[in-house]
């Protein structure tokens, strides 16, 4: 059943513009982040001063990760929310499939998508570094790969909460809006320092902040399972009378 659902999901996403937007954000974000990182390091090194939005100590992950997170938010809210907007939820919920299987199949698609996006972002960064020859200024490709995949895996743990918001509020925009609002707010107010205090980004923040592995894994698993359970419950109790 899950295989059938995954096939149906992939068929629906294959030609979606939203998927290409997410690719653009992950790859383009990685490229832009590497360029910005190169610029800030150049400014810091030559003591030319700093621009208001740039710090000499900004690294690639400081810029690439928020953009990648945005891409993950978009994909997740689209996968779970679009059916409510175009009416296809009627077809899904009157098909002979379990509703928890629907959630699991979609999370498998999203998790795969997130890993592929992070791989693409990392690949773009490796290519950019080769072009800019910045190896003396930035961490090597192994470090950036660890950051990319670590953030991706940690981000996956938070995505069921986005899925829950899409189902609970029946659409793409409420969940996307909620995710973006939180992301923008924490970045504007305090960057990663504040972000670490918010449950939404907790696993990813812990991964970046280097918290104890057991704590990071435990919280990630708890958040993931809690989000999944909440999403399944929201889908099972969805009351679509019109």
């Amino acid at each position, binding site marked *: 059943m899950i295989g059938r659902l995954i096939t149906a999901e992939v*068929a*629906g996403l294959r030609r979606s513009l939203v998927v290409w937007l997410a690719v653009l954000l992950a790859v383009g974000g990685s490229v832009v982040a590497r360029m910005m990182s190169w610029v800030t390091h150049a400014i810091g090194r030559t003591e030319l001063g700093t621009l208001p939005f740039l710090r000499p100590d900004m690294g690639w992950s400081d810029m690439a990760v928020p953009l990648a997170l945005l891409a993950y938010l978009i994909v997740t809210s689209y996968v779970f929310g679009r059916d409510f907007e*175009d*009416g296809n939820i*009627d*077809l899904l*919920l009157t*098909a*002979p499939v379990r509703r928890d299987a629907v959630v699991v199949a979609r999370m498998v698609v999203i998790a795969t998508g997130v890993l592929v996006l992070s791989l693409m972002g990392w690949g773009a960064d490796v290519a950019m570094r080769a072009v800019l020859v910045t190896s003396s200024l930035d961490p090597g490709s192994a470090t950036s790969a660890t950051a990319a995949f670590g953030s991706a895996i940690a981000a996956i743990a938070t995505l069921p909460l986005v899925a829950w918001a899409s189902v609970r509020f029946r659409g793409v925009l409420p969940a996307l809006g909620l995710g973006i609002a939180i992301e923008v707010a924490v970045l504007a107010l305090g960057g990663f320092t504040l972000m670490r205090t918010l449950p939404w980004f907790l696993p990813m923040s812990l991964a970046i902040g280097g918290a104890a592995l057991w704590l990071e894994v435990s919280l990630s698993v708890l958040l993931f399972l809690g989000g999944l359970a909440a999403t399944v419950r929201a889908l099972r109790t969805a009351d679509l*009378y019109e």
Partner: protein
Amino acid sequence: MASSPVIEAIRLSKTQGRRILLDDVSFSVARGDLLALVGEASSGKTALLRALVGLAHSDTGSARIMGELVGPGAYRVFERVGFLPADPPARRGLSVRRDVETSLSLAGVREPDAARRALALVGIEDLAEKPAHSLSDDSRRLLGIARAIAHSPELLVLDEPTRGLGGVERRRILDLLRMLSLERETTMVVATRVADGVVELASHVGVMRGGGLVAEFDREGLRERGREHVEVVVSDPPRAALVLEEQLGLTDFAVCQEHLIRIYVPGSRISEINSALVADGIEVTRLTVNAGTLEELLERLSSGEAASP
């Protein structure tokens, strides 16, 4: 209706704020029967169908399909059910054929020609490779019907299958429903407008008003009710019945409600009936002639202009 129903509603009620969506609705439909639910807009037809297939949750009451209580746990029963929503969606990014094939795949059907066959039955096989989301509203409705029938379900729950269709398409869908009912003994619950033609195929007709099922007829009862007759509301029905029988020699009448008598005579006898009743001291509070067609009768019942049986 007969026992062992394929689908049944048991005292379904639902409110939204102060609005009554469903008001204690009960009915059952036996195998091979077609129940046409007629009613004006916002009469509760769509809410009822959505509660029947588990998309909406009733506040009280329950629905059963083939004996199974409808709910998230009863998903397997949908292998035998086809559903057409009021506004049929189309899957973005898929062709019309792939859209139907996706529904078939979710239903576990692996017949390679099933999608094409369903599209041919509704007359849109020439649109098979077009993007599903680019279809016009009427073609999208036909696609929705194709999806609902593609896996040869035993039960079809259809919300206005002929709404907005042109003459040829409408006729084709009515013929299709007739074929499914007669040849495959498919059980159907169809929400429809009176003039859309489904009533002519129905073995039973339910009239919805204000969220309630205010009247239900079988084919014979509907025909009977559609005959020309005079309806009279009187203060003393037993005495009125005596007057009708003894003074006017009428025998073809029925006391339908507490004070309502339906007299199957030509409308030209209305003043004669009124005079006889009044002369006998019986208070007549309403006197109407029903000389309309079946459609008009259902329209009047739907709008509340005519009394329920």
